[in-house]
């Protein structure tokens, strides 16, 4: 049984107009694999509790982890995490969870990451693990965000990194002079910017359910084997 642990907020940073990254110090956490998530539990003064799953943007040993959280309008937990949780506050967490949507440095297959909105968070853990281990495995990220200001980890993703290729697509508003007009990810985008099916890449797709389903079914149409396309949906 994984059980609940109490984390303390060590740092917190605004990432987008609706999103925040939170660094938690969780005594006894003991490390996690890139791509895993946790359950966070918040308790109201009247004792009412709510639990939601959040992806972890970091991996490796240690008790310090980073979460990326996007505010869900009318949500029970995310508005509290994004707007109210302060440095020094406690947060109950259970994890690390999930052994399916994970990447380990010993995997040698080329990796295609595809994220929508805050779905980039577990993919960021994979990118950081890839970078930290100086892995030569070819990595590509296709990241669909609403606009430039809605891009999580913008500065870090702009840094060049060997064996990593990053493509940003914007759904609502593209920066001036951007080569592609704003719009949802299309089949043509996937053909132009992602690894082709014939090299059998491991594909990780994370984001809102409609985004994940649209992208995953198009990838299968393009010849990717369904078992090579791992998905994680977070509703929406």
């Amino acid at each position, binding site marked *: 049984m994984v059980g609940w642990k109490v984390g303390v907020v060590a740092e917190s940073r605004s990432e987008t107009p609706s999103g925040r990254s939170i660094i938690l110090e969780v005594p006894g956490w003991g490390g996690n694999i890139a791509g895993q998530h946790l359950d966070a539990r918040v308790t109201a003064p009247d004792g009412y509790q709510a639990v939601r799953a959040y992806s972890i943007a970091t991996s490796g040993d240690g008790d310090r982890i980073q979460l990326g959280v996007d505010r869900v309008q009318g949500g029970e937990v995310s508005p509290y995490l994004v707007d109210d949780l302060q440095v020094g506050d406690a947060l109950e967490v259970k994890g690390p969870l999930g052994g399916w949507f994970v990447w380990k440095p010993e995997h040698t297959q080329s990796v295609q990451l595809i994220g929508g909105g805050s779905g980039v968070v577990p993919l960021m853990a994979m990118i950081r693990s890839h970078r930290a281990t100086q892995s030569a495995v070819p990595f590509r990220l296709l990241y669909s965000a609403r606009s430039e200001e809605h891009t999580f980890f913008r500065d870090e993703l702009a840094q060049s990194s060997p064996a990593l290729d990053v493509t940003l697509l914007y759904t609502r508003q593209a920066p001036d002079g951007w080569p592609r007009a704003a719009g949802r990810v299309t089949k043509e985008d996937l053909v132009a910017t992602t690894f082709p099916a014939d090299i059998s890449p491991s594909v990780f797709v994370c984001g809102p359910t409609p985004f994940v389903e649209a992208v995953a079914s198009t990838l299968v149409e393009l010849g990717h084997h369904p078992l090579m396309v791992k998905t*994680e949906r977070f*509703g929406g």
Partner: protein
Amino acid sequence: MDGHVDGNAIAGVMSDIFAFDVTTARARCRTCGAVAALAQDMVYGGEQGYVVRCLGCEDVLMVLVPEPNGMRMQMRGIAWLEVPRPV
């Protein structure tokens, strides 16, 4: 059907029932015979109860309902569950 997530979302609640990560276990649907990791299947609901549906035919594989004494799991749609050998 709308409003679902996937089996990754129940890793936490399932960790109270199984000592291993059950989302990586493969389950065979009793209705259509499709085999998938639980992480791939569709999950509806939330803390008030989860319904896990087959990725292939959308029939119910498993239901998790909180009861006063703990979590009750009904696996009526699962023909078998294959648990990965620990590494």
